[in-house]
């Protein structure tokens, strides 16, 4: 049983560019949440997708957007990248819109130069 898979694992971009990160949830899960983990910090909630709609959103600017597809996979898009966007981006899945006992992927390490 495949867990949560994320791609790519590492990414290097320059300021001002746009990036798309991808996530496939654990089998049987229909809810995907995205978190940003800066160096030395805990994961911070970006947003959650359930039934192809953004259900909740954290304190992140509109440069951060997402999408969920009918097969429950999800994308995180970040526009106009800033140096401060450098972080580990974690995708987590859960069943039925739940937020507890999330299953996390290994993350995408984004470096903005």
């Amino acid at each position, binding site marked *: 049983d495949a867990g949560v898979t994320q791609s790519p694992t590492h990414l290097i971009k320059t300021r001002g560019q746009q990036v798309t990160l991808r996530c496939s949830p654990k089998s049987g899960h229909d809810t995907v949440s995205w978190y940003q983990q800066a160096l030395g910090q*805990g*994961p*911070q909630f970006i947003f959650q997708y359930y039934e192809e709609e953004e259900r909740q959103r954290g304190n992140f600017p509109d440069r951060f957007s997402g999408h969920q597809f009918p097969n429950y996979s999800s994308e995180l898009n970040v526009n106009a990248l800033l140096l401060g966007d450098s972080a580990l981006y974690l995708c987590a899945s859960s069943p039925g819109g739940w937020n507890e006992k999330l299953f996390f992927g290994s993350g995408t390490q984004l470096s903005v130069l």
Partner: protein
Amino acid sequence: DQQVKQNSPSLSVQEGRISILNCDYTNSMFDYFLWYKKYPAEGPTFLISISSIKDKNEDGRFTVFLNKSAKHLSLHIVPSQPGDSAVYFCAATYNTDKLIFGTGTRLQVFP
């Protein structure tokens, strides 16, 4: 505003001894608390949780204690094993809202 705080960035414990990781929170509305463990190059994995209606939950070597009056919870690992060496995150939520994580404590268990 850091609603969930882990004030000890690191902890070193000898194998076989007890590891105690602490977490404080400020929001009295939190009704569910979780601990996650994270190895390098991996995502966090769920370890143990506790509802605010309980004060203790035990799962094998892991026990979580909740003191609501002090807004404090702790994770006890007994006995500690080298494989427990990882970063431990405390997280909290209310009404199934988003998880709010602490900054983590790096546990090192040495022989």
